[in-house]
């Protein structure tokens, strides 16, 4: 390669490398702020700032959703597998909010600890499945569970 072009190529590589390092360091320094939400175990461990609006994300614990009679009040627990956090919320939940699915709640932490949420967002996964396939999978699971229960029942005298 022509020496002048070689020098220009080095300039190009230099620009990309230096800006990568700079922006890499900046995002590393901001890594907590880059997260949209805290996890329930971080809240339980007390590593989360108090008296500021925070977001907590996790799986909605099965059978934990309780709706207040005669109002839009609802409470549920979020889990990340290690810790659980109680959330109180008054308002309309998104369509995709469901037990056993991920959700993000935003609000202020109260003693307990419990989150007094003013916004609840549903987080969905990257899987897309037609309804018939889901039904087929459910029946398949049910059938297998029944078979396994049968097999266990017959093996224990």
């Amino acid at each position, binding site marked *: 390669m022509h020496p002048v072009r070689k020098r220009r190529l080095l300039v190009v590589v230099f620009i990309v490398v230096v800006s990568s390092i700079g922006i890499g360091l900046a995002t590393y320094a901001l890594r907590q702020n*880059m997260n*949209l939400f805290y996890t329930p175990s971080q809240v339980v461990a007390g590593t989360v700032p108090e008296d500021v609006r925070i977001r907590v994300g996790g799986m909605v614990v099965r059978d934990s959703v309780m709706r207040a009679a005669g109002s839009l009040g609802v409470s549920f627990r979020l889990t990340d597998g290690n810790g659980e956090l109680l959330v109180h919320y008054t308002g309309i939940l998104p369509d995709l909010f469901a037990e056993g699915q991920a959700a993000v709640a935003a609000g202020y932490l109260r003693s307990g600890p419990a989150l007094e949420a003013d916004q609840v967002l549903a987080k969905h996964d990257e899987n*897309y499945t037609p309804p018939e396939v889901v039904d087929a999978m459910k029946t398949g699971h049910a059938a297998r569970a029944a078979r396994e229960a049968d097999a266990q029942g017959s093996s224990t005298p």
Partner: protein
Amino acid sequence: MARKWQWFHRLGSPPGFYRASGYWLPWLAVAAALLLGVGLVWGLVYAPPDARQGNSFRIIYIHVPVSFLALAGYYVMAAAGAVHLIWRMKLADMVMTAAAPLGAALTFLALWSGAVWGKPTWGTYWVWDARITSMLVLLFLYLGMVALRLGFSNREAAGRACAVLALVGTVNIPIIYKSVDWWYSLHQPATIRLTAAPSMHPDMFKPLLVMIVGFYVFYALVLILNTRAEILARERRTGWVRDLAAGRNQR
């Protein structure tokens, strides 16, 4: 100079590219129209709805392809910028100029379709999530490229400044890609991965694939159209453009 490079130098000259691309355009236009038409009807009418999201999931057939091209288009623009910086190739500068508004439009569409998809699924149009915010940064990078070009009266200086901005901005592209894996984010991880099967039912995935290929062809079509207009604008005083305008032995 070796003979095998002749075609490259002919194609690399603005009039050579203008002439050659004139033959490609009809094919690209027909292919883009066919692919996008088939993908659209397939995705909107024949693909099954998602079990949890219902029909709002059909926004994926516009959201994912435009997002793909918004990111891939940045690499096209930055590569053209690097070629221009190293070899001072005029055509590369024109391609870089042509890619900026196209990328901005596609990034805007990615953000827009994401917002109207977010409302029925997540419960909000907008959230300052790492993926969405880095995509907004991409939009500003594209718009910055357009603005920077307008800010210079000297074309040489403008080309070099834009190339540097394009190269610096490339850092943002892997951040956008990996943001959903590196940080806790509301946006779901990628459905289509190079290393694994798509986490999507084949009946839903095939129309998506058609749309993605269709958008790649559409991108090539518009990039060439923009580049051709840019060539004419810069070479309007040359003999070959005068011949072209007067309809003298030109295509």
